[in-house]
């Protein structure tokens, strides 16, 4: 192979679990040690010790690339030094906490974007992530834990991973570790026990993680041509984000193609009031970030325009949010849902549930 040829893309391996303390970092470092023993050139690009003795011991003998210091609002922050890793050009790099958000002023806003840079340079990456950071599960995680996870990773990023390995641990063992202060220092521990670390919450998250891991294994095993085509109706309403996540998730499971459509009477967003416009733009951007094809269609009547598009593009399923009248648990007469139901009797129409925070 000639020198000028670009390096083949690196191999990405994700250690997936459902809570801090499950042993992801440990597993990742163990693998790095194993590779080193076999003579592979491996470095640690970023590692979060959390003061855990076992984990720190596992870095012994491994080359750790020093972090980059970044000043933000008078405080010093440390981030992974992607440039230094590129210069060092190892064969394999271990990067903890895939879902981490970099401090403002960093080259890239997300650590997974840094990882993409390493992969593009032909470096193999081992990384760690908890299930609750997966974008399409955000509403469900909120429902189960009462916590709105802010640091998310779009599902397509995980799809690009060559391997996803589940790091399993029983909730009981996890709670024990937490109580003994292995996972966090004790003041943080009691807070953690209050929300994420309730046993029933952990059991639910664990089940989701196991099912997700099974799904990741399955999609890597088979290649199938998409037969379903899903259309998601975008509006300025806050439920749109939920609708997009759910549509994305169902599309992934059904291996469907996915479109997000906004219907504007003027055909573009310029005539919308600023607030509405900002919401619609945010939703369309969100959909694009999840690798959903977006369109803005011109039409006076949203229902008719959507159904017409669906007919012309062989859409098999239309995803809508519930429009609810305030006083009754009934669809308001003439609502978008009932209009679409009337107009598109030949297409599947899915009205998604509003997932709400549980009463904790």
């Amino acid at each position, binding site marked *: 192979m000639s020198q000028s040829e670009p390096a083949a893309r690196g191999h990405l*391996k994700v250690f997936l679990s459902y809570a801090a303390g499950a042993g992801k970092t440990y597993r990742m470092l163990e693998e790095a040690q194993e590779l080193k023993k076999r003579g592979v050139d491996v470095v640690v690009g970023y590692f979060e010790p959390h003061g855990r003795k076992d984990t720190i011991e596992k870095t012994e003998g491994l080359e750790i690339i020093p972090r980059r210091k970044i000043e933000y609002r008078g405080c010093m922050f440390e981030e992974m030094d992607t440039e230094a890793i590129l210069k060092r050009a190892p064969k394999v790099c271990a990067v903890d906490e895939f879902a981490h958000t970099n401090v403002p002023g960093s080259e890239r806003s997300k650590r997974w974007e840094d990882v993409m840079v390493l992969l593009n340079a032909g470096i193999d990456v081992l990384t760690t992530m908890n299930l609750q950071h997966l974008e399409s599960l955000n509403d469900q995680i909120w429902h189960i834990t009462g916590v709105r996870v802010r640091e998310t990773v779009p599902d397509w990023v995980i799809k690009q991973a060559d391997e996803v390995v589940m790091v399993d641990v029983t909730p009981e063992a996890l709670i024990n570790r937490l109580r003994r202060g292995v996972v966090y220092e004790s003041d943080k521990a009691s807070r953690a026990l209050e929300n994420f670390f309730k046993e029933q919450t952990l059991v639910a998250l664990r089940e989701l993680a196991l099912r997700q891991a099974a799904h990741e294994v399955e999609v890597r095993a088979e290649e199938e041509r998409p037969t379903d085509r899903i259309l998601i109706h975008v509006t300025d309403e806050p439920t749109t984000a939920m609708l997009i996540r759910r549509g994305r998730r169902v599309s992934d499971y059904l291996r469907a193609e996915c479109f997000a459509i906004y219907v504007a009477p003027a055909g573009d967003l310029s005539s919308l009031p600023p607030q509405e416009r900002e919401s619609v733009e945010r939703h369309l951007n969100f959909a694009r970030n999840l690798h959903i094809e977006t369109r803005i269609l011109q039409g006076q009547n949203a229902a008719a325009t959507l159904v017409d598009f669906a007919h012309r593009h062989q859409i098999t399923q239309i995803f809508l949010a519930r429009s609810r009248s305030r006083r009754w648990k009934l669809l308001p007469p003439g609502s978008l849902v009932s209009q679409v139901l009337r107009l598109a009797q030949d297409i599947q129409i899915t009205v998604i549930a509003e997932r709400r925070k549980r009463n904790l």
Partner: protein
Amino acid sequence: MDSEFRRNPEWLLEQIEKEQRRERRGRLKIFLGYASGVGKSRKMLSEGLRRRERGEDVVVGAIQPKSSPEIDRLLSQYEIIPTRNIAGKDVIDVERILRRHPQVVLIDGLAYDNPPGSRHAHRWQEIEELLEAGICVITSINLQYIEDLQDEVSSITGKRPKETVPRSFLEQADDIEIIDAPAQAGFSRLRELALLVAAEVVESELRAYLRAHHIDEIWGTQERILVGITPRSDARPILESGRRNADRFHGELFATYVRQTTLSPDDQAALDRNLAIARELGAAVHVLEGHDPVRPLVTFAHEKGITQIFIGHSLRRGWWHRLRGNPVERLIGLAEGIDVRVFPQRPGP
């Protein structure tokens, strides 16, 4: 409220006895892997040492015939009660373990059969005895030995071991932990199956917890799809889609019919055909009662933790609709927390 929760003294007494039996009984923890060599033994032996550091009395009651330097190093730190070789088979020395009575015993390899004439035919039955005696057991198993999965596993591996363990034994474990690792080409289905077995054990754990705490809620950790059937609905495409979706999500499929009035012979025959399709596709079929087609369906869905309801477009027009509204739209309005998918319908004959 369910009769299960009714506070009668007999029921309470039974619960207390059950609880006491549970307390006396040792805990069972199972490490599950999809193949040998994924690291179950190492994981088990390391856990045993950690427990010992914390002051638990841990011994080893059975080891794997194949070893490695790392396993040997771990084993050298243990008190081992060796298995006895009887008629060419490794049999755990239950009596010696009972006499020694440690807090925890590690049994590496759950799927072993004993020679004829032994106290128990299978090793898992001996483990049962240890648990009853209040000893905690940590053990390991490969997917291929789970009885109910043998057909599928052997179709992938081409091998069918004679020794098996019933799935129910795994399901009653207090803890199950999966040892996952990337699979060689062709074996990823085994890996997937192992992850799903673990997910199902965890799901039943979650349900038991929610039941015990009287939490009546949809957590949606598993997709459950309910197909609403009527005599005149074109049910096959909906049910087939339900099946496909349930499989994709590794979920469950239900079908219901709400019996409102006595049906004409034609409608009854059409309904029977639809229900037969549902059963043929492996749906759990339930017939509900009520004079409103919507409410019983929604109540059932909430009880069963349904996450998606599949129904056909309503084709009926008439006074009922003018009075109460289109049933599909009413369903969408009432089915809080549940996705509703409405399917195209061919007008009936």
